[in-house]
């Protein structure tokens, strides 16, 4: 039974010709459609899908393309409710469109917008400060971007003038082929390129791959780090760039202590020198589809909005990845739904609970970020939150990504 309830209107809105791209309108339609699908109101769902299909061509403006992505995700959800359907359905699953990048392509790709470079600059600056004086630096890079942060870190380390650079150990986990962006080489090859590069900058580097997965909270990684003997005067750095969101949280495991909590607790017990946490400031964890869709819609319009300067192919790849995310958030449930981002506020709670304290990013880094933003579209901005020491990347005033630095307390 449809339980859609619509509140009494005390005031009728004045008639207004609605443009196809009116985001609020689209959002409402999508939300209604979600409700209809989940309550099995086929007819209503059908109608709304039809309207959406006609008002949001996939090659329209950014709002329309955003809506199309959500539309596809809703369709996918509808289909998944009737599994027998999937073999007869001809619609294209997003996975086919996802590009598999070469590392050079990925390097260019991550710099199309400040989305990732913002976090890279802030984190690298903090790391460099924190590892001053250590003779060995062990970086655990938990990043969505397949180590794209590392070359500039290596370069910065090599450029320190007054002392010999430390021995650099880089550890990554092997489970990163589950979500985009996908690369077309193995991590072994990736690592060897990095080592070669480090060598050209006179940095001695070791590269280690540990098989470990987000789905169990990287338990094997943590275990390895526990037993792995660390050298004298070695700094452990854990760089979490858009990765911790995949660790199951309470909404998945529905227990009071989730793998996410456990991860942070064990991380703390390793006594790292510094932990950097860069994530997207949005809550995609709600168990209620409508709420989740609303959150997702009100955040993911941003990446669609930023692609104006992209070339057509790049935009297609980029939006395919966002569409993958949308599909995951809207159409998947349970363990399949891996995109479980939380807000900055929530992450702060977690870190504090795990006995980490926030550290301010240095002024120089802030200046570097600003300079970088100058080179991108004018909508990009940054705020420095003094009350919680975070840096936040903004697009047209809306929070996009936050960058935070933590030390054990």
């Amino acid at each position: 039974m449809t339980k859609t309830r619509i509140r009494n209107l005390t005031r009728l809105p004045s008639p207004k010709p609605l443009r196809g791209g009116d985001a609020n309108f689209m959002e409402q339609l999508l939300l209604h459609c979600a409700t209809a699908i989940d309550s099995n109101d086929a007819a209503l769902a059908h109608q709304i899908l039809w309207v959406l299909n006609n008002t949001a061509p996939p090659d329209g403006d950014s709002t329309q393309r955003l809506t199309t992505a959500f539309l596809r995700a809703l369709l996918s959800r509808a289909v998944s409710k009737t599994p027998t359907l999937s073999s007869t359905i001809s619609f294209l699953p997003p996975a086919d469109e996802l590009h598999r990048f070469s590392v050079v392509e990925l390097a260019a790709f991550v710099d199309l917008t400040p989305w990732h470079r913002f976090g890279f600059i802030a984190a690298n600056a903090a790391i460099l400060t924190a590892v001053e004086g250590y003779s060995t630096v062990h970086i655990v890079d938990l990043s969505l971007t397949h180590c794209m942060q590392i070359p500039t870190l290596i370069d910065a380390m090599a450029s320190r003038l007054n002392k010999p650079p430390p021995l650099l150990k880089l550890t990554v986990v092997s489970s990163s082929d589950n979500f985009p962006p996908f690369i077309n080489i193995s991590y072994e090859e990736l690592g060897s390129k990095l080592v070669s590069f480090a060598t050209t900058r006179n940095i001695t580097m070791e590269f280690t791959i540990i098989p470990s997965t987000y789905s169990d909270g990287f338990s094997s990684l943590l275990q390895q780090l526990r037993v792995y003997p660390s050298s004298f005067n070695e700094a452990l750095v854990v760089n979490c760039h858009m990765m911790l969101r995949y660790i199951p949280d309470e909404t998945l495991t529905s227990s009071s202590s989730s793998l996410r909590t456990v991860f942070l607790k064990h991380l703390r017990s390793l006594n790292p020198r510094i932990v950097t946490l860069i994530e997207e400031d949005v809550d995609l964890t709600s168990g209620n589809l409508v709420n989740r869709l609303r959150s997702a819609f009100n955040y993911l319009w941003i990446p669609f909005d930023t692609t104006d300067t992209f070339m057509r192919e790049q935009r297609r790849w980029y939006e395919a990845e966002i569409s993958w995310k949308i599909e995951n958030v809207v159409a998947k449930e349970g363990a399949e739904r891996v995109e479980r981002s939380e807000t900055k506020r929530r992450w702060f709670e977690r870190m504090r609970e795990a006995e980490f304290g926030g550290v301010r990013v240095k002024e120089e880094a802030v200046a570097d970020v600003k300079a970088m933003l100058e080179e991108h579209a004018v909508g990009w901005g940054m705020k420095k939150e003094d009350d919680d020491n975070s840096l936040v990347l903004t697009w047209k005033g809306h929070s996009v990504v936050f960058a935070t630095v933590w030390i054990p307390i």
Partner: protein
Amino acid sequence: MPVDLDNSSTVSGDASVSSTGNQNQTPKSVGKKKRNLPGMPDPDAEVIALSPKTLMATNRFVCEICNKGFQRDQNLQLHRRGHNLPWKLRQRSSKEVRKKVYVCPVAGCVHHEPSRALGDLTGIKKHFCRKHGEKKWKCEKCSKKYAVQSDWKAHSKICGTKEYKCDCGTLFSRRDSFITHRAFCDALAEESAKNHTQSKKLYSETVTRKNPEPDQKSPPVVESPPSLQPSSSLPSVAVAPAPAISVESEPAKVISSSVLSIQNSPESPENNPPEVIIEEASRTIGFNVSSSGLSNDHSSNNNGGYAGMFVSSTASPSLYASSTASPSLYASSTASPSLYTPSSSIEPISLCLSTNPSLFRPTIQDPPHFLTPLPPQPAMSATALLQKAAQMGSTGSGGSLLRGLGIVSTTSSSMELSNHDALSLAPAPGLGLGLPCSSGGSGSGLKELMMGNSSVFGPKQTTLDFLGLGRAVGNGGNPGGGLSALLTSIGGSGKIDVFGSGEFSGKDIGRSS
């Protein structure tokens, strides 16, 4: 000449102002006017909508005597003095002037909405020019075109002045992008190969010989530039010349000196004894010496690499030994680029072409859309579409399609297709449809109204996709009150929380605006 004022209202007077809660409002300094973010205007500002003609007009103030045009009234007045005409300079108004914001006259443009107006007349002029104007200014060096002269000037200043160039030819304006690219670019490896064969012409000015070998039997080989050269795209690479035919002790000497020449603080390789290198060198005379070269310079870290590398998969350590990008190869006289292929399974070196786009290999054509696009038709507003959806036949069989798919349908009556051409749409408001609706918020009332609204269309009309979501022209049938109700609730201010509590009541629909 009066300014055409088409429309003046407040920014927030209309519906759907995007939330200003997230604006970055930190004032830059005391005394500076607070700047709103681009496209997020002050809610109390007065909205001015100028016509395109007005926007593009550059000299609106014209002297009546000589017809000379001026951009500002003040300038015209000063000019009038020259004709001995009465002139008056207006003082800056002392009272608080209401802030003005400007919208773009082009319908459909993002900045056409008052909530996205721009705060500055020059800004809206530039925007209009940039987005909707003709691009009259062209950069000479590249092919970029600009509609606004100042944009063109700004670009010309920086065009071609990108500071960082990778050996593969790609240009970068930022160092971090360059470094990241460099780390992964295969040109890193190519460079080392080139260095030892034909790089004389590339690096002739900057070559420094580290250890001239008087008894070399091979023609002298040129090294890559020393680490001091700041603009080198491959920093700090130095190679010592080495004899092609290796004598036991000489390679060792060469190695250590090459190591020295690279590093600032020399660290002697602890754990890769020269014997190893010599062995390999002697094996590889006249052949690619990448492996030996590599183990030479990577001595400390290479072994470190071995030690530190416990890999889950089957990648063998030999990957390192023969990997590319060794900075300290010493080439044999007969080594040629084609021989420089590591023995293991590294991907082939590919030279990047000089323009960025080529990095992205051309790929697939557009994937087929699963929802077939509408055959060319005048664009319909979303409201109209909702109405149409609502009005589509009482006898649509969409419900049956979905039923067949196993999705529980609430419709009980059997549906049939009906197809009518050229549906005439009810006039725009879409609200005062006067449809009765059973009140009481239970779903059944709504469903009843929904019945019969399906969008499956006959074969002659459009292509069907799985949910029958073809973009069809339309058909007649029962007005679908439920969808209109939806329209009512959605179509308005956007501030409506349709998921709040409360019940749908028919009385609102009956009212006309």
